[in-house]
Structure formats: structure tokens, C-alpha cells
């Protein structure tokens, strides 16, 4: 599984020529891990009576922040610049890559240690580094593993969710020449040993940003392994990548978010480390690259804007029955799962990713766990509406024609009866057909068709019997 095939261009969900949606069977261990994670998080959350209040509050704060992005980002820039940080603005991933490379080249950087950042995945920054001859090393254990394996993350919080301990043991034996083991402790020790040396040697460290706080000019990085702390503190230069939606109005609100993020993300009360960066430390450099890369397109659609509330906790992925089965790669881009199906089509365009909103049964499990209460199923239906009307792989005149016919049939009683008679006839003859085309085949692949009731429709019963039922004398209680 080379990394290249996981890039946007080759993403299976997004290929226009794909008649249906791509449905690989995800690794089973992944589904089980995701399910376990949801259960643990929900148990933790259920123990807090006011958790629902926290969610409401967090959602409200995000609503304000996203509604005032322009002001808050400028305030954030002003405050953190005053303490020696340099803020850069990038409209696209390419621009962001250029900025980061320029910083690296100015300081003659040879190796970079990176803490986890999904924006960096969006930018495909590792490719940019590689083509500039700079060695970039992922230091988050999960990211380290997928980088070592030449893969892409399957999850936004736990990137190597698809790898079992045995897989990791084989990977280490293969790539690092370590003796095979599947012992968690030993595997961690191997990774730690290899990574430790890198922190000391690196010329530049990188991180993402969980929250950018406007009123104090602070940005926050949460993590569990200590690698973000080392990546940002050991090398002389720290470059942080921040999506524009990460801004919060005030430091007062931070605890709210830390509370919900750790619980929803990893089932912890608080992440092991919470780093607050207030500016450059003396003698060292701090750069922050604030990136749009399609986010303002989401901002422009009032009905979809709520998806910018996302704090990337990953809870919706874990809870999603579709994600659990197809895995992260099926979605074809950096952000998989329910939130990916909402934001990716908007960021990269419906033309490329217009199929993603259809990759859901609309069950709503995502909405139930989302700490900022993003109404994902409603957003998905909204995007489906956009996808069938705007330029996208779902805008097919044949399908539209069918729905128009459907609509006409269902706008009159007689036509409806006729249509239903045809459907029933189809179901009657289906068992005798040598092969079932298209949607019919998709149904009968694993399911029997409904049986045709011998007594006819409800309508008929109503006419003959129902309408004459006498309300019983029993009064309403």
C-alpha cells in the first residue's frame, strides 16, 4: 500500500468513473478499536452530569468564533507577534508549503522533527520537504508508524488505528532491523530509542495547533506522548501550522474545550500534556502559518458553516458504522469519517469529492458524540442537495430524470397506484430473472425482496373495512 495511491488524485471514493461508492473492507481490528474507543468515551462522558452543558457551551463559543474569524485572527496575530512570533498567512496548501520551505532554507535546515498535524497532511508537507532534500520525521508514534510504512493515516487522532501490534512488530523488523516482537511495551521502547536521537539532531521542529487564543495571543497544542513538547522545544526553530478555524476568542474558554476534547478524543479527562505557547522564547524562533486551504469556502455557505466548529477530536469517526467498516483510506483524503464527508467536498470541491456525502446511512451516531454538536447528518443531506445540482460526479441527468419521474408519480393518487403496480410486478418477476441489474441487484445481493401481501394494499382494506370501524366506547384515558 504505497502512499501515493492514497493521495487525493487517486482516491477511490472520488474517482468520477466509479459507478458506485468504493467499498473496501477495512481491517477488522480497526473497526473493533474504533468501537471500543466510542464505548470508553461514552462511559466517561456519562459519568459527568453536566457534559451536555459543556457541549452546548463549546458549540456556542465556536459559533461566535467562526462568526468573527476575521477580527479574532487579526487579534491573535497582533498579540502573539508582540511577543516575537512571526505570523504568515497562506491561502492554499502550496503557499503554505512555500512558506515553510523558505523558513527551512533560510536557516539551512537539514532535518525536521514533526509533531502531529493534520494540516501538514493536507499540505502533503512531507512530500514538499522530500523534494527539497530535507529530511522530515514524524514523531507522533502513530504518524511515525504510517510514515515508516509509507502509508497515510487512517484516522485523524490515532493515525495507525489500522495496524495491529503484530503489524508494527513486522514493520520494525523490516524497516529498522529490530528483532520481531508484538509486545506493546517493547515496541514503544524501540520507537522511543529511535526517535530520541532525532529530537537532538533536528534543526527545526514543527507542530500543529489545537487552539489559537485571540485575547492573549496564545496557541495550544495537546498531546500524550511528549513528542510535541520535544519537537517544539529541542530544535532552535518552531514552525506551527494552524487552520483559520482554530481560533478561540478568549483564554477563559480554554478549559471548556480541553475538557471536551480529551474526553471525546481519547477518553481521557485531560491529555497528558497541554502546551501553551505565548511567543518566541529568547534565542529561538517561532513561526506560525495560518492556513485557509478551502476553509473560507465552507464559511461562505451559511448552512454548512457549522462544520468549521470541528476540533478534530475524532469521536465521530469512531462512532460511525460506515467508517468502522471501510476505514479511513476509503474516503480518499486527509479527513475521513463523517466530518471528512462534510468538509472534504467543500474544501477540495464537489467536483472531486461530491460522492462523499453519500457515504453515510444518515444514522446520526456522529452528531450524538460530537463535542461541539455539529449537525453532521443534516449537513450531509444539505451537501447531497448541492452535489446533485452543482458540478459533481453525482450530477447525472439520468438520475435526475428518474427522480423527476418519481416526483410526478407521487403527486397524484392514480399515478402512484400505477407506479406501485409496476414495482410489485417487478418484484414478482424478479425471482425468475437470470440476473438482477443495478440497484435491484444491489439489494438482492444479500437480501430477499419484500413479499407481496395477498390481501392487497392498505387503501383497499380501508375502503372495505377500515372506514367503517366504529370508535370504541372506551374513552381516552
Amino acid at each position: 500500500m504505497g502512499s501515493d495511491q492514497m493521495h487525493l488524485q487517486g482516491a477511490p471514493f472520488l474517482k468520477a468513473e466509479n459507478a458506485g461508492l468504493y467499498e473496501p473492507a477495512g481491517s477488522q481490528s480497526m473497526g473493533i478499536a474504533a468501537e471500543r474507543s466510542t464505548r470508553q468515551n461514552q462511559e466517561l462522558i456519562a459519568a459527568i452530569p453536566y457534559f451536555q452543558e459543556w457541549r452546548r457551551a463549546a458549540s456556542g463559543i465556536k459559533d461566535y468564533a467562526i462568526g468573527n474569524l476575521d477580527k479574532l485572527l487579526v487579534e491573535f496575530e497582533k498579540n502573539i507577534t508582540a511577543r516575537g512570533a512571526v505570523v504568515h498567512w497562506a491561502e492554499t496548501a502550496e503557499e503554505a508549503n512555500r512558506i515553510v520551505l523558505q523558513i527551512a532554507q533560510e536557516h539551512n535546515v537539514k532535518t525536521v522533527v514533526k509533531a502531529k498535524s493534520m494540516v501538514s497532511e493536507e499540505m502533503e508537507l512531507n512530500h514538499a520537504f522530500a523534494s527539497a532534500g530535507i529530511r522530515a520525521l514524524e514523531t507522533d508514534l502513530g504518524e511515525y508508524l504510517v510514515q515508516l510504512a509509507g502509508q497515510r493515516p487512517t484516522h485523524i487522532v490515532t493515525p495507525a488505528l489500522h495496524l495491529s501490534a503484530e503489524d508494527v512488530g513486522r514493520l520494525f523488523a523490516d524497516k529498522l532491523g529490530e528483532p520481531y516482537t508484538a509486545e506493546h511495551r517493547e515496541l514503544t521502547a524501540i520507537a522511543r530509542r529511535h526517535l530520541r536521537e532525532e529530537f537532538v539532531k533536528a534543526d527545526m521542529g514543527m507542530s500543529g495547533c489545537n487552539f489559537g487564543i485571540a485575547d492573549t495571543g496564545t496557541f495550544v497544542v495537546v498531546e500524550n506522548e511528549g513528542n510535541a513538547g520535544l519537537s517544539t522545544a529541542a530544535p532552535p526553530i518552531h514552525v506551527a501550522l494552524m487552520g483559520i478555524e482554530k481560533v478561540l476568542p478568549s483564554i477563559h474558554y480554554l478549559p471548556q474545550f480541553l475538557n471536551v476534547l480529551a474526553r471525546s478524543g481519547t477518553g481521557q479527562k485531560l491529555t497528558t500534556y497541554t502546551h501553551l505557547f505565548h511567543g518566541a522564547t529568547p534565542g529561538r524562533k517561532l513561526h506560525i502559518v495560518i492556513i485557509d486551504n478551502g476553509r473560507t469556502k465552507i464559511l461562505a455557505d451559511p448552512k454548512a458553516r457549522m462544520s468549521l466548529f470541528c476540533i478534530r477530536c475524532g469521536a465521530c469517526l469512531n462512532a460511525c458504522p460506515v467508517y468502522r467498516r471501510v476505514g479511513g483510506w476509503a474516503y480518499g483524503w486527509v479527513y475521513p469519517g463523517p466530518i471528512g464527508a462534510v468538509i472534504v467536498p467543500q474544501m477540495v470541491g464537489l467536483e472531486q469529492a461530491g460522492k462523499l456525502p453519500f457515504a453515510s446511512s444518515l444514522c446520526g451516531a456522529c452528531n450524538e458524540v460530537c463535542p461541539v454538536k455539529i449537525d453532521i447528518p443534516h449537513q450531509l443531506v444539505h451537501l447531497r442537495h448541492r452535489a446533485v445540482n452543482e458540478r459533481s460526479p453525482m450530477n447525472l441527468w439520468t438520475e435526475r430524470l428518474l427522480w423527476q419521474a418519481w416526483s410526478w408519480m407521487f403527486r397524484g393518487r392514480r399515478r402512484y397506484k400505477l407506479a406501485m403496480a409496476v414495482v410489485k410486478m417487478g418484484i414478482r418477476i424478479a425471482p425468475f430473472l437470470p440476473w438482477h441489474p443495478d440497484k435491484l441487484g444491489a439489494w438482492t445481493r444479500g437480501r430477499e425482496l419484500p413479499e407481496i401481501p395477498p390481501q392487497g394494499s392498505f387503501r383497499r382494506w380501508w375502503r372495505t373495512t377500515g372506514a367503517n370501524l366504529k370508535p370504541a366506547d372506551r374513552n381516552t384515558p
Partner: protein
Amino acid sequence: MIQPIHSSSGPGDYPTYEPGETVALFIPCYIDQFFPQIGEATARLLTRYGIPLAYPDEQTCCGQPAFNSGYWEEARGVIHHFCKAFEPYKWIVSPSGSCTAMCRVFFEQVDPDERIVGVGRRVFELTEFLVNVLGVTDTGARFPHKVTMHSGCHGRRELGILQQPLALLQNIREIDYRELPNIEECCGFGGTFSVKMPGTSLAMGKSKVENIVKTGADVVTSVDISCLMHIGGMLRRDKATRHIRCMHIAELLVQE
């Protein structure tokens, strides 16, 4: 541990039913055509409580299939047709959580016109009408079988329907109610999802079937026969599970 999170009208927000008021039955298209006995059970059940019923003959569908597929323009015409048929009625009751959710929650998205939204808001799912409006939790039914219940996501997450059918079921005489493990998990039906992503739909259905088998029940019930069409289709496909019957909750509630 299931908490309905955004129920648009939780218990307490229900209007009061005055004796003698007519209730219009909304019998969704697939029930009308494939499961008429559910409509019949609904009518018989409501009649027992002295409720005068009407069945607007012009009704067809709530527009959900087109709406969920993104074809809102096509759905709009059907919704208008629905509203024309049901406009005269103060009470509309339907034996489907999913279709009720469509009417109550989503009409607004397609057409924010007050009259359209107003009709949609007057639609109630059968068990919520019984429990929350009429205050009935025991229909006096008797059903001596092993029964488990599937909870359709749409009705539960949009309208908070879960406790109502559970209460009604558990009060049935001689019923051997078996709780379904992972009851909150989607069965994989999802309307057109079932044929757009059949592989995933079936994989989800498989987990549901496994959980049903675990309960040892002979009957699976639900407020949504649409999910049961998919689950039942899978149950009937396999010899080992063919004996498990799918029945709508209304059918159980009228058993004497």
C-alpha cells in the same frame, strides 16, 4: 445508555388531544403496498381509544427518498402534495418514526413556508402519540413470544423515540422481551444507502442480525418497518435465521 440529543419536541411539548378530535392516518407508501397489516393494526388500535379516524385518499409519500438523495426540488412537489392532503387535519399519526421525522424536522429545509412546516409539525409517530399524547402505556395486548426490538436511528435521534415503544412492549402480557445488544447501532438500511453502498449496508446488517440472534428472540419488532425490510430480507436469506419474524410494533400492540 441512550440519550436522545436533539429531539425537536421532547415529552411535555406535546399538544393536548381533546376527545372526539379526528386523527388522520398517514400510511407511508411502502406500508400501504407491502405491509397493509401494519396500517390496519394502527387503525384498529387507535379506534379502540374512541378516536375518529380519517384516511386522506390523496396521500402518497412524505418525500423522504428524494430528499435524502439530494433531490430537494423533486421532493418539494411531493411534500406539497402531502400537505394538500393533510392540511385539514389537526392530528396526523403515522406508524413510522422515519417518515414522521421527515415531516416534522425536514419539511422546513425544503420549503420554509409556514403552512408546509405547520402540517409537518402535526405529524406524530404512533407510539409517541399513544404514550406522550394519549398517556397510554398499556394497550392490553397479549403476545406470548420471545421478542426483541430494533430502534430506528432516524426516529430516535431526530424525535427521541425510544422509551415509548419500550414501555408499550414491556407492558404486553406474557411477552418475553429480550434487550438487543448495541441497540443504538444503525442496521445499515439508510434508504438509498442500502443500494448505493450495498457492501457496507450488508456488513452493518450482519452485525445487527448477529445481535438479534444473540437475544434468542423469534420476533424482531420496531416502530420502523423500513429498517425491518432490510433486516428481514437478510434474516430470510439465511436458513439459520429464517424462522425469526419481523413485525411492526403496532401488530404486537393489537394482539389479544
